[in-house]
C-alpha cells in the first residue's frame, strides 16, 4: 500500500516527532535537545494560557456568529422556489471563496485601517473626528474569522435543509405546535447534522488560525497559531512550539469527538 506508507511517513511520523520534540529541552538556536522536560507544557498552561483561552474564545464566538448568520442564510437559499435564483444565491456565497484566503483577509485591512474605508466614511459623515482603532484588535480578528469561514457553516446546513421535508412543519402545526415549538422540536433536530458539521468545520480552523490574526490582529489579537509560528523564527523555541501545537491538536481532537458523538446521538435518535 504505497499510499498508506506515504501517509505514515509524511503525516503520522511528523506528528510523533512533534510529540517527542515537545518533551525535550530548548537548545541553542531554539532546537530540541535532551533532557526530557515538561516545562513547555507548564508554560503553555501557565504564561500562555491567556492566549490559549483567547484562541478558544475567538473560535467559539466565530462559530456562534457563523451559526446565527449562516443558519437563516442556508434556509433562505434552500427555500428559493426558482432553481436559477437558488443557484445564484448559492453561487454568491461560494464565489468570494475562490479568491486566495490571504487576499480576502487583506481586504479587511483596507476596510478597518486607521486610514481605511470605514474610518474614512465615518469621518466624511462627521460621525467621528478621531479614527476608531478597528485594525489590530480582537474585533478585527473576529470579523476576519467569520468572513473566512462562514461558507463552511452555510454549505453543510444548506445540504441538511435541502433534505428536510417541509411537510413536517405542516404536520407539527396541524398537531397544534406553535412556531417556536415547531422550530425547536421539528426543524432544528432534523437539520442538526448540518449544524454539527458546520460548527466543527468553522471551529477547528478558527482555533488554528494563523493568517487572520497575523494580518488583522496585531499584538492585541495574537492567537495560538501566531505563537506557534513565532517559535520557528531566529529567536524561536521549537520544543515550545511543538508543545503548543500538541495542545492545539488535543483541542481539535476533543471537538472532533464532540462532533462524532453528537452526530451518533442525532442519527441514533
Amino acid at each position, binding site marked *: 500500500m504505497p499510499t*498508506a506508507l506515504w501517509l505514515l511517513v509524511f*503525516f503520522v511520523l511528523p506528528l510523533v516527532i512533534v510529540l517527542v520534540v515537545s518533551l525535550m529541552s530548548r537548545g541553542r538556536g531554539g532546537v530540541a535537545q535532551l533532557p526530557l522536560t515538561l516545562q513547555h507544557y507548564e508554560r503553555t498552561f501557565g504564561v500562555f494560557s491567556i492566549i490559549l483561552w483567547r484562541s478558544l474564545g475567538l473560535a467559539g464566538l466565530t462559530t456562534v456568529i457563523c451559526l446565527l*448568520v449562516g443558519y437563516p442564510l442556508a434556509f433562505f437559499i434552500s427555500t428559493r422556489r426558482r432553481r436559477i435564483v437558488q443557484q445564484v444565491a448559492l453561487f454568491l456565497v461560494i464565489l468570494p471563496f475562490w479568491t486566495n484566503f490571504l487576499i480576502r483577509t487583506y*481586504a479587511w485591512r483596507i476596510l478597518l485601517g486607521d486610514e481605511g474605508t470605514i474610518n474614512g466614511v465615518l469621518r466624511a459623515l462627521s460621525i467621528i473626528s478621531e479614527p476608531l482603532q478597528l485594525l489590530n484588535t480582537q474585533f478585527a480578528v473576529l470579523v476576519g474569522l467569520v468572513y473566512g469561514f462562514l461558507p463552511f457553516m452555510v454549505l453543510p446546513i444548506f445540504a441538511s435543509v435541502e433534505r428536510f421535508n417541509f411537510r413536517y*412543519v405542516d404536520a407539527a402545526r396541524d398537531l397544534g405546535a406553535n412556531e417556536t415549538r415547531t422550530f425547536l422540536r421539528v426543524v432544528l433536530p432534523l437539520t442538526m447534522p448540518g449544524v454539527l458539521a458546520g460548527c466543527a468545520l468553522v471551529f477547528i480552523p478558527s482555533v488554528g488560525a494563523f493568517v487572520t490574526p497575523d494580518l488583522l490582529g496585531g499584538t492585541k489579537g495574537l492567537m495560538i497559531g501566531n505563537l506557534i509560528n513565532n517559535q520557528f523564527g531566529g529567536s524561536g523555541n521549537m520544543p515550545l512550539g511543538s508543545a503548543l501545537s500538541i495542545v492545539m*491538536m488535543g483541542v481539535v481532537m476533543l471537538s472532533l469527538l464532540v462532533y462524532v458523538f453528537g452526530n451518533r446521538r442525532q442519527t441514533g435518535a
Partner: protein
Amino acid sequence: MSAQALVNEGALRRNRRVKRLGGLGLWLNPLVAYFFLWAPILVLVLFSFNQSKSVASFTGFTLQWYSNILNNVVGAESAFSTELMLNAFRNSLFVGTIATAIATVLGAMIALAMARGSFPGKRLLDGLLFLPVVIPEITQAISLAIFFKVAFDWMHLLSGERMFPGFHTIIMAHVTFNISYVAIVVRARLADMDPTLEEAASDLGANPWQTFWRVTFPLILPGVVAGALLAFTLSLDDFVITFFTSGVGTTTLPVFVYGLLKLTVTPEVNAISTIMMLLSTFLVGISLALQGRGASQS
C-alpha cells in the same frame, strides 16, 4: 384535485410557513450576509482604480497602478518586481503540477482499495485519511517543518551531505494534504458506481487487469479528473504549509503575495489582488465547466 395542484398547494403552504417561521429576520439576514461577503471584495477592486493612494475615499478613476505593475515601478521601498512575481507564479505551477500528479495516483489508489478491498486496519486507515482534511493547517505545517529538519539532520550525520528545504519538501508536503482530498472525491464517484458492471466483466472472461482498465477506470475517470483539479487548486492556493516547508528561491505565488501584504496597503497591492481574484475566478470557472461536462458525458 390533480396531483399537480396538490404539489402546487404544498409548495404555496410551504412558502407561507417558512415566511412566518423566520419572519422579517429571514429577509434581513441574507441582505446583511451578502453585503458582508461582498463588500470587502468590491472595496478592494474599487480602490485598485483610485487616483489617490488613500483607501479612505475614492477621488477618481485611474489605471496608474496597473501600469505601474506592468512597468515594474512599484514604490521604491517595496520589494516588488513583476519578474519576481511571475517567477513565483511559475514556481507555483511547477509545484502544483508535480504534487497533483503524485497525489492523484496515490489518492485514487487508496480510494479503490477502500471501496473494493477488505484488509485489517481499514477503519484506522479511514480515520487517518480523514485527518489531514480536518486538522488545522498550522499543525500539519510545523510537524512537516520539524520532520524535514530532523530528517535532514540525520542525513547530515549519516552521509555528511547537507540538504535544505526546497521544491522537494514543498511537493512532498502538498502531496500529503492532497491525497485525502483526491481520495474523498474518487470514493464518492466509486460509491455511485454500479458494482455489478465489474462482476459482469469478469463473468464475461475479463481478467482483473482488463476489468480495471476497460470498465472501472473509464467509469471513475471523471472523479479522478475532478480530484486532480481540486488538488491542483489547493496546491496553487496553499500558503501556510508552503510557508513552513519552502526554502530559499522556491517562493510560490501565495508566499510572495504574503510578503507584499505584510508590507503596507499600497494601491499596487490592491491591483495585484484584483488581478489574482480575476485569474482564480477564471480558473475555477474553467474547472467547473470541465467537471460539468465530465458529469454530463457519463
